């Protein structure tokens, strides 16, 4: 006899699957609803001004793409008297409700298109230039009448933050500048601001020290080492061309060609040469240091540290047609060899440090690009070529193609919102999707049910070969919607089977297009065919189980009373099948909301769209990348399905009751 002790066994057996279903079914379902109604726990706010106490003009979900339109700098004074530079960007983006919003965002709330901190680099280094004053005032705004906020000494390096064109009577560029230590900040007219360029450093012209080289073979395997970089200087030694040679210095000699006035630069290399093998019968030194001409070294191994520069005087545009003296030696007391126009392109050969009245000044050995003029210039008159000579306000604009970022940080916590649903209902594709889904449902279901009943009755008739038919009729149970879509695509595509058949039959002249823009009716027809083909078997199986539950006596009684096939079907079979059909109907209706891969396979999912496809489109990181909107769609589908499931469950119960009777 059983006691009233509760048997735990069934609960333990049921637990794993209930737990699993809770974890991966119940919980995510709640998650979908939460995602659909709760805005991202962090929202990036856009402000009316570059100030987070100003009015909020829009709210953008994190990770939404924003377009940087403009920027501004806010300098906050720190207790130490210095300023902090804070970038603010004026951005345009799309908020949750799908509307375009614009406003200011603090730089730290943004993430560059490629990653953290990856922003267009806009500020530049400059230098202040002015004759006859020691410091220049900077102004609060780009206007000479505005308050002066400080002064910055001339000839010092500055940061140029922003440019702006003021067009009063004449267009005038202004720059927002600061000293590099951010102690004085303000606006100054463009005429005083020059780009700061990094001059050539001796390192740029240095050899990769020390560099090895091989020598050019000569007739008698000898080469000459000179005491100084000139062929006329003393010969230190003759060495064998198999010597090991290390180059540690160089200089350039300009050789005047005999037949015309042109000169040719020739490198001389200072080397150290060693030779260990004694040559038969000849007494050669085993090591020496000295100068050799470039011709002694194999052509491809000759070091050539030459750089391209520009002869430059500051400020050049105030002295048009200015020339620079090119000295014959690295000192300004030397004779002037040539007058070089400013902006002449230069070959920069070698840096030379020259002591001049206790001051060490750097000079460069330069020549013009044709090497007809050569001499020495002080370092400040040589700039790397490509250096801009003036800034314009345009240099401080955010450039197209370099202006994308995403929201990275925000404020606020989870907040109830209907924005996602608003956006969904306002979406043009939503209406299309729901219309197509409903049309498909209304076309597919009746055809499916009629066909399924016919198939079930055929199987029930127990004709010969029944088991083969049974197998064939159940094949579609295992066919995926994607495969079904591709199967029917192969039939209806432009050069598909249907066109082939029709043309061979002589029914059409040329290929008929079934799938394409403007062929919506045809595409829907194909989807209906594919779905009927694929999913009728499920209905059929349900109907067959329903048919088996009908007692044979009923049908026999009907036959006895002279009812024909049609009458028996209509008055006995169908009423008895009602519960099964209800169940199948509800199951198919719910599954109809999931139609997805068939549609994509046949139509591509753009011209014709359905609810599930929209869900995917919103989720897809490569397209909308908005999981909340996808969740809104999912919730919408869930509500529809839930309503139908209620009916479903009631139908199940009524079926169970009718079974008991």
């Amino acid at each position: 006899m059983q006691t009233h002790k509760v048997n735990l066994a069934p609960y333990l057996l049921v637990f794993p699957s209930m737990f699993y279903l809770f974890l991966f079914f119940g919980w995510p379902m709640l998650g979908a609803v939460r995602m659909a109604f709760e805005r991202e726990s962090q929202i990036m706010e856009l402000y009316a001004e570059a100030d987070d106490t100003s009015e909020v003009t829009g709210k953008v979900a994190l990770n939404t793409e924003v377009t940087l339109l403009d920027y501004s700098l806010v300098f906050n004074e720190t207790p130490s008297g210095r300023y902090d530079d804070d970038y603010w960007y004026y951005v345009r983006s799309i908020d949750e409700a799908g509307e375009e919003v614009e406003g200011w965002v603090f730089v730290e709330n943004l993430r560059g298109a490629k990653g953290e901190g990856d922003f267009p680099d806009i500020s530049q280094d400059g230098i202040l230039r002015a004759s006859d004053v020691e410091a220049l005032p900077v102004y609060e705004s780009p206007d000479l009448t505005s308050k002066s906020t400080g002064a910055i000494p001339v000839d010092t390096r500055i940061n140029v933050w922003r440019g702006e064109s003021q067009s009063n009577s004449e267009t005038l560029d202004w720059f927002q500048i600061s000293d590099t230590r951010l102690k004085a900040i303000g606006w100054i007219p463009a005429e005083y601001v020059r780009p700061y360029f990094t001059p050539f450093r001796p390192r740029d012209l240095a050899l990769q020290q020390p560099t090895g080289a091989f020598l050019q073979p000569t007739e008698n395997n000898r080469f000459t080492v000179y005491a100084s970089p000139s062929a006329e200087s003393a010969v230190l030694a003759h060495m064998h061309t198999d010597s090991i040679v290390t180059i540690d210095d160089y200089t350039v000699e300009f050789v005047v060609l005999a037949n015309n006035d042109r000169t040719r630069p020739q490198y001389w290399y200072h080397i150290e040469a060693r030779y260990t093998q004694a040559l038969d019968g000849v007494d050669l030194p085993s090591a020496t240091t000295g100068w050799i001409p470039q011709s002694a070294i194999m052509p491809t191994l000759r070091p050539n540290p030459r750089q391209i520069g520009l002869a430059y005087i500051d400020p050049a545009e105030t002295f048009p047609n200015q020339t620079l003296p090119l000295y014959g030696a690295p000192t300004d007391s030397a004779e002037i060899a040539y007058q070089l126009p400013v902006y002449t392109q230069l070959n920069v050969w070698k840096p030379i440090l020259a002591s001049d009245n206790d001051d060490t000044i750097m000079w460069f050995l330069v020549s013009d690009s044709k090497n007809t003029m050569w001499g020495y210039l002080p370092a400040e008159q040589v700039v790397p070529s490509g250096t801009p000579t003036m800034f314009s306000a345009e240099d401080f604009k955010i450039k197209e193609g370099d202006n994308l970022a995403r929201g990275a940080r925000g404020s606020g916590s989870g907040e109830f919102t209907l924005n996602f649903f608003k956006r969904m209902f306002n979406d043009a594709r939503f209406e299309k999707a729901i219309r197509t889904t409903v049309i498909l449902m209304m076309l597919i279901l009746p055809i499916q049910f009629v066909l399924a009943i016919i198939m079930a009755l055929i199987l029930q008739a127990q004709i010969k070969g029944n088991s083969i038919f049974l197998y064939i009729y159940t094949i579609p149970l295992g066919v995926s919607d994607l495969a079904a879509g591709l199967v029917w695509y192969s039939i209806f595509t432009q050069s598909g089977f249907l066109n082939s058949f029709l043309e061979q039959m002589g029914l059409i002249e040329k290929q008929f297009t079934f799938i394409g823009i403007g062929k919506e009716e045809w595409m829907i027809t194909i989807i209906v065919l594919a779905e009927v083909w694929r999913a009728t078997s499920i209905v059929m199986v349900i109907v067959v189980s329903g048919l088996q539950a009908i007692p044979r006596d009923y049908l026999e009684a009907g036959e006895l009373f002279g009812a024909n096939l049609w009458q028996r079907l209509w008055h006995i079979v169908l009423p008895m099948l009602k519960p099964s059909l209800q169940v199948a109907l509800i199951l198919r209706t719910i599954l109809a909301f999931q139609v997805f891969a068939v549609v994509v396979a046949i139509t591509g999912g753009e011209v014709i769209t359905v609810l599930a496809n929209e869900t995917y489109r919103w989720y897809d990181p490569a397209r909308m990348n908005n999981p909340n909107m996808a969740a809104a769609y999912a919730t919408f589908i869930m509500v529809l399905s839930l309503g139908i499931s209620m009916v479903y469950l009631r139908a199940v119960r009524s079926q169970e009751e009718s079974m008991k009777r």
Partner: protein
Amino acid sequence: MSVVTDQPKTVVPKRPPLWQLDSAQRRAILQRRVRRGSVYVLAVLVALWILLPIWLIGTMAFSTTEAVYSYPKHFAPIPFSVETMKFFLEVDGILESTRNSIVVAFLTLFWSTLIATPTGYAISRYVFRGRNAVRLGVLAVRAFPVVILAVPLAVTFVNWGLNDTVWAVALMHTALTLPTTILVISSVFASIPRELEEAAKVFGCSPFEAFLRVVFPLALPGIAASAIFTFVMSWNEVFAAILLTLDNRTLPAEILYSLDKASETTKFAGGFFMLVPSLIFIFFIRRYLFNMWGQITK
């Protein structure tokens, strides 16, 4: 448990030859023949409706690439060639995604069967408080679309660091197939007479031994059939797979994702390739299919 083929045949008494019958009887027999014949015609037409599209895509899959792009198309794979199929299998990502699909399907099959078997047994064997709730719950879950689960689960898996793995897809597919598997397995257990189990207990088996030695071996074919069906469901599933994966796509997800850039050969061969397991598996489990789907409606 009853299967269509199991139905008892009505025994037709041997009738005399046609010429010995009167005209009314002859008419009745002819009428029956016509009816039988028309049922046959109908049965064959429906069979053709199902088979013809499969034949056509099979034709494409086993034609030369040239034939695939030709027009008008042949309606049989003449000349027969594996060129198109080979081309499809060599497309970048197909083999990897096929492997992913197989791994996912096996993981799903394993988890789903493992978790569903005890529940199926409990539902079929025990009468306990809440049994109906469990059954109805499972039924209700069965009816829910994958679409609503995939989105939040994808986000959850990202947080768990599981996104874009076969594990994520397998966990999801297990949740999707579990209700069906539970119902089918419970119907399998229900079809095994309780008396056998009780007899085993009488002969000294513990309940667990009775299950393991008597019930389980009898249920094994049915459980295997349900496992195969689980495999097919996972192999076919595309929506969850495409949401949960980016680089480690399953085969349907890979094919769907690359549809707009895919050549016709890939589409046709891919369609056929995805069909093949279904054709084979359905053949093996056809006897059980009615059980499975019949049960779902009850």
